[in-house]
């Protein structure tokens, strides 16, 4: 029989229960340390598929700043975080962008969208023209 022990810190509320779990063949046989039912739910979700909101940035041209902040509009599997980051690194937006504008629909095969988290106006003289400078040098 395959017996495994795992430790979790519940983040549902600020209490942050330290929960010890014993698994047999992947099934929970004992759980200790959680002070409420929510801790149990938290652990089973973490075991089944840990889900996280991803917040990051995407390149934007023609705006005051070089980067536009974005987020997933719902949690996505934790194991997909770096894949999503890689995918977003290939995108370049152009100002103006409105808050909650959908940048990628259904990212990495999930049902979550990546959306802008702020408004960013178009400006005539972008202050942060870093990338333009580099390409000019290369040219």
């Amino acid at each position: 029989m395959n017996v495994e022990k795992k430790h979790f810190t519940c983040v549902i509320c600020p209490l942050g229960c330290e929960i010890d779990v014993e698994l047999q063949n992947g099934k929970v046989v004992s759980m200790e340390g959680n002070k409420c039912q929510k801790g149990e739910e938290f652990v089973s979700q973490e075991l089944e598929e840990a889900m996280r909101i991803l917040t990051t940035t995407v390149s934007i041209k023609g705006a005051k700043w070089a980067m536009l902040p974005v987020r997933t509009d719902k949690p996505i599997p934790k194991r997909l975080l770096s894949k999503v980051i890689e995918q977003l690194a290939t995108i370049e937006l152009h100002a103006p962008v409105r808050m909650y504008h959908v940048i990628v629909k259904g990212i990495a095969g999930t049902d979550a969208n990546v959306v802008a988290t702020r408004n960013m106006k178009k400006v005539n003289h972008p202050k942060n023209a870093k990338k333009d400078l580099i390409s000019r040098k290369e040219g």
Partner: protein
Amino acid sequence: MDVEADVIVIGSGPAGLTAALHAHESGARNVLLLEREEELGGILKQCIHNGFGLEQFKKDYTGPEYAERLIEELEKTNVQCFLNTMVVSLSPDRTITAVSPEKGVFHIKSRSVVLAMGCRERPRSSINIPGTRPAGVYTAGVAQRFVNIDGYLPGKEVVILGSGDIGLIMARRLTLEGARVKGVYEIMDYPGGLKRNIVQCLNDFDIPLYLSHTVTEIQGKERVEGVVVSKVDQKMNSISGSEQSIPCDTLLLSVGLIPENELSKEAGVELTPITKGPVTTETMETRVPGIFSCGNVSTVFDLVDYVAETGMIAAGNAARFAAGDWKKGRNPVEIIPGENVRMLFPQRYSFKDDLILFVRSAKPIEKPVNIELSPLGMRLKRLYARPNEMIRFKVSRDKLKAVTGPIEVSITER
């Protein structure tokens, strides 16, 4: 006088935005918001992570979303915002001297003032790390700006000193962007940041956290080449023989925040070492009449919700003061920290309003505790007390009526 105002708010971060909005909502006619940067929002713009507004709006916003929500509301009002405007002095009679590219040097006279300048990060010089002075040493907030707004990665092999929330957030952010975070080192024997940040920023990415450790040397000539970390004893002295060299190109410092009170001092506002911010009453009025203070310039809060709450209180009262609806009332009593209380805000009670008290424990107590207000005989129960989690509670004005002397707040095990 170049400009006149009923309520002036200095700074447009979460405290200032909330204060400006609420001053308007409280009936102040001529509200002016001064911001030294070119857009509103303060530090929220670079805090792209979520977790903002959980209590205030029951929503899980990112920093920029939280700011936009307030900015959009502000745009519907007649509150005037002066951007690129640096306040250079504030006098006790509430005259402000400011400077901007558009207006040059100009003066504003206001009936009341709300201080909302926030806080700044403690730099390397405030903790005196020995070693060379190469490039590659940044405070966590500066690195956050580089990554999230300017699109630069400050380094590839990173060590973080201090486990404050910004340091934890940056550990995750830099990892996601491709840097390798070798560890977070904390001099105390408990973490500085919130538990959810330890889990979601460090544990999720297998970034180790070393408690009772500090950086004792920075190495490298032009650029950081490595740091020496050491264990510390209970008195926080490094233990000789425990040194360990860690090659890295970047050291991030997340070693605390200090309220930004240069202007307050100039206006004669009394500060307290308990918070490093102004001494205020429950109305957020400082000891200079008509000057109110809120948010992180008062004391460094854990949650934006608390910052906004103090902003609302300060603004409501600043509007009342500006309207001439401000009676002197009873003499305020002191609120003083007792057993196991490291921080306490506000420090005076003036019998005008309910008291919302913020308390920070001096040490972690992972057992049920009582928060006692003596001589009131009031006891509030909590399941634990941790220095990294402010305790907030409200005491109604009715309960405080009978108080005649100082109120002492202490935290004791049950």
